[in-house]
């Protein structure tokens, strides 16, 4: 019951927070001056007329009410004006999101097991050459920017050896074999730093847990090393790691600008930035709404996940 009440309270608070953030976003973006987009030989009066017809000259509060009416009552997020003019913003976003999610999903499912396995192995082989090798690789992987991996992957795998196409396959057949193969370079480039990060945190947590007194007790009770590690050490080590993995879930919906650019992933990476740079209100508000809502949801899920992982943690309990 505590959990139910707590969850309900968090959801209500989330909705209030969401409304406040969206209002702030709308007001702030409307306060920014419109870009001077009058090209040579174009008629400034006509461009200003267009803005006037779109209601840009009205008080921001009035514009916001009209915007809410359009979005909430009519479910219409509008069409692009300065970014992808004339295109349905929701349609564009939905069209582009699967590509980003696909690449990130493959990367996620590749990185999580590998990262945890490397971390466990390094912890078990602490201070031996295997640990040093993994730790050094992790250090390098964390230090080198992702675009460097991306270019190396592309240069060797796509250009030099010709194993993969340069770019992700065109089209919407996301679950075809050709599409899978074409995403591999991007997935590899994306996964390096994720694997490294997960390896490092798993190793650090597990190393600490393995030296705990209860581990010694478990071994003296007659458990094998494997049993003690899996049943006691790993489970406790996962308490701080798992919420991090869940949080990485959010990243799946926001594409990497660099990786998408290099491997031709037609995803949403960069769309948000473009919408701000070009001050396209419809794109900006849609993307703000999506990422704000999703971010708030993830925050709740992460908080609740502590209770599942470690029963000692009880949300909302007095």
């Amino acid at each position, binding site marked *: 019951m505590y959990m139910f009440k707590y969850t309900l309270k968090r959801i209500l608070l989330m909705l209030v927070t969401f409304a406040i953030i969206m209002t702030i976003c709308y007001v702030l973006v409307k306060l920014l*001056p419109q870009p001077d987009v*009058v090209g040579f030989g174009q008629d400034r009066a006509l461009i200003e007329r267009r803005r006037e017809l779109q209601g840009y000259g009205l008080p921001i509060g009035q514009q916001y009410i009209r915007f809410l009416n*359009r979005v909430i009552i009519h479910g219409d997020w509008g069409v692009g004006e300065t970014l992808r003019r004339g295109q349905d913003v929701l349609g564009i976003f939905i069209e582009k999101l699967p590509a980003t999610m696909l690449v990130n999903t493959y990367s996620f499912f590749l990185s999580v097991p590998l990262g945890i396995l490397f971390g466990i192995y390094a912890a078990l082989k602490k201070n031996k050459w295997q640990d040093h090798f993994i730790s050094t690789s992790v250090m390098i992987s964390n230090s080198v920017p992702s675009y460097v991996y991306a270019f190396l992957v592309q240069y060797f795998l796509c250009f030099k050896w010709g194993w993969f196409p340069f770019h992700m396959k065109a089209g919407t057949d996301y679950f075809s074999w050709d599409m899978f193969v074409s995403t591999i370079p991007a997935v590899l480039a994306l996964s390096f730093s994720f694997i490294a990060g997960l390896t490092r945190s798993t190793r650090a947590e597990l190393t600490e847990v393995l030296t705990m007194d209860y581990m010694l007790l478990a071994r003296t009770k007659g458990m094998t090393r494997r049993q003690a590690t899996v049943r006691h050490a790993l489970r406790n080590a996962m308490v701080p790691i798992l919420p991090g993995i869940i949080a990485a879930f959010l990243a799946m919906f926001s594409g990497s600008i660099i990786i998408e650019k290099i491997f031709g992933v037609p995803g949403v990476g960069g769309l948000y930035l473009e919408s701000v740079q070009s001050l396209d209100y419809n794109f900006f508000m849609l993307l703000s709404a999506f990422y704000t809502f999703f971010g708030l949801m993830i925050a709740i899920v992460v908080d609740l996940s502590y209770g599942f992982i470690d029963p000692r943690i009880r949300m909302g309990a007095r």
Partner: protein
Amino acid sequence: MTKMKKLFVFMLAFTMLFSAIVFPLAVYAEETTEKETEETAAEGEENGAAEEEATETEGEEGTEPEETLSPEEQAEKELAEIVEFEEIAEEGKYTNMQAWSVSPSNWNAHTYETSDDGDFLAYFASSLFTFQYDYESGEWTKGYSIIPAMVTELPADVTAEYAGDERYAVPVDATEGYAYRYVLRDDLKWQDGTPINADTFIYSVSQLLNPKMANHRASMMYASGMVMHNAEKYTKQGTTSPMNIRDYAKEMGYETVGELIAEHGDMPALVNWASSFGEMYADGEWVAEGFENDTVEANLPISDMKALFVEKALEWGQSEEEGNEYYETETYINYDYPEMDFSEVGFIKTGDLEFTLVLDSPLIGFDFYWYCSDFPLVYEPYYEAAKVETEDSDLITSTYNTTVDGTMSYGAYKLVGFQDDKYFELEKNENWFGWNVPELAERYPADTIYAQIVKAPATRYQMFLKGQLNSYNLQPDEVEDYRGSEFIMYTPRDFTGSLQIQSNKEALEKRQSPGINKTILTIKEFRKALTWAIDRADFAKTTTAASVAGFGLLNSRYIADPETMTPYRDYDPAKETLLNVYGVEYGEGKEYDDLEEAYAALTAYDLDGAKELFDIAYDKAIEEGLMKEDDKVSLTFSFGVDNENSQKTFNYLSDHWKAAVEGTKLEGKLEFEYDPTAGNNFAVNFKEGISDLLIAGWSGATMDPFFLISAYLDDNYRYAMAFDPDGFEIEHEVEGKTYSLTPMGWYKAMMGYDPDHPFGKGKVDEEVRIGILALIEAAILEDYSSSPLYYGTSASLFSQRIEYESPDLEFHPIMEFGNVYYLYDDIEWQDYISESDGFLDYH
């Protein structure tokens, strides 16, 4: 439940939640594709019916209807997209493989904005007549030739028919240049076979000018070189806009402004205080600060405004007549554009396959052919279906030409595949009339155009070396490697990159703080020193791919005489201007013997001179109280984007400027801040004084340098707002008589806008106009607020698969490099690549 089970359940729930989001989205995307293809098939059937009807009516040989695939087949076709060249290669087929750095997003001719969209749009459109690609005896023709395209013959001048016609305001004594009749070919069709006739043109232009849509490309009908009768009024009907008082008087039927004042002297006046006076008159006093650079209500009647202009003119030592001239050109009245029917616009259907264009300003010869060859068509059923009205807007927007299904071609190619940020695919449009015109057909040798959106230059480069692209634009650090290659070609651009230097004192004062100075920029010697301290040739070589040192605002792409294709820059007055501005002398006893030698040696680089100027500027700044001795000068250098090139440009210039002040009184006092956050606001930020330095310039209107110079004078476009084009006069001799006019005054005279100084086209010899243009250019350059650094040039490699028509890859201002010829079909090309072990060498 044990902890492990709970953990397992949580992970399972997490995976299910994830799947619940990912998979429906992917499926939705697929279903959307299928649904769209179903709609396409349905529309295809309708169009097929339209085609049959047309065939019966005209009694001519019909075209084969397009192959209609079932929805399943369409969906399958859509899904089976292409990744590699090998997958679409066929024997005897020529595929043009391209890589674009930006995805086209809107190819609606009424609203498109970027040049990429314009290039894309060109594949689906045709012009009424076109410039011909041909050359004589191994050299490009110096002039031009024009062939009919959508018309049966070049338009006939029918001015005589409309002379004195009050509906279209053609002068009674007009004999040529006001009205042209276009006769269309009878085989014009949309890609689905629907005929194109005069009604199509009338509908398209009426929609372009639709007042409820406010399409910004509507201005091409009245604000470019062409002024279609009533096009502006039709577009702006029902709105109120400021109109110059002289034009207003004429519009209301008065001969002079005086007559208007006599009857309506109490009408409220509008004025731009900042540009007209530099001060604002309010409550009986002149106010020096706190007013914006915009046309606003003056809170005075038009009769009183005249007194103000005259008062100020006398105060500036000018005559009453000059004050009156200022008044009549710089005072505005709100004009209510009346409701109007499209039949009043100078675009008239005069037959099923015939329409007439009526102009407000006559166009003759090249100018007519240049400006009046294109009236972009829209396909009515799709256009009407694409109109969007939203709850929070009174504007009708349009989604026309943003998807494959919503695109209807009347050009050489049709769109068969498109994915945003991914690719597009075009195939030959069998219903294009141009396949029956050999001169047009030979321009489009490719059967298919397949373009991928490849944003990373390194990827494009690798793809090119593997034979997957027809050309590759070289990056700055790659040009040197290929300089001697037989596959490199240089394309001069019309863009001149100029250093814009802020000199708006009020804005600079606002942004400086104790110990940090910016107002030294108001001292001309300082601005001059900044430009003289840069070796422009080295700058261009270091920071751009192939651009060259730039000295003038207009580069060699600007053609002053289209009849001979002679660039403005090749004329002696244009050269003299630059030599005078940069202090290079020639003649007896001078360093250079003649003009050509001096011009060829021009560098505009004088480091020692720059150091002297820095000292002079510093002394002046101290003397005038602009800065203190211990102050540092900190300048913000603004960029629209943060990329390697912006950083390289910033580092080059800031390093060289810091080095240039060594040994001067400003040593150690000059700092620069890199600001790449401006985005699309880089221009407006600079105009409003939010940044101090910027590299920007203007391009376009390559066949009309006289018009383009207004970009450096007009408030709407000018970056250097502190430079006042009406603030000083220049003496110049025209046909034996000396006149004294402001730079803006000379511009108006040169364009034929000033009846008292009729030096417009056709009124005086072109050499005279070129002389005036050079005079204006010098006036702008000598202010050192806009200093050219480089003339844009791009370098690219073209594939071993193709060759260009142009002999020795000589660039022609209109024809560029001419037609492309394929040396290998797709299969032969694959074999060719295999023989080279998959990698092609272009060195």
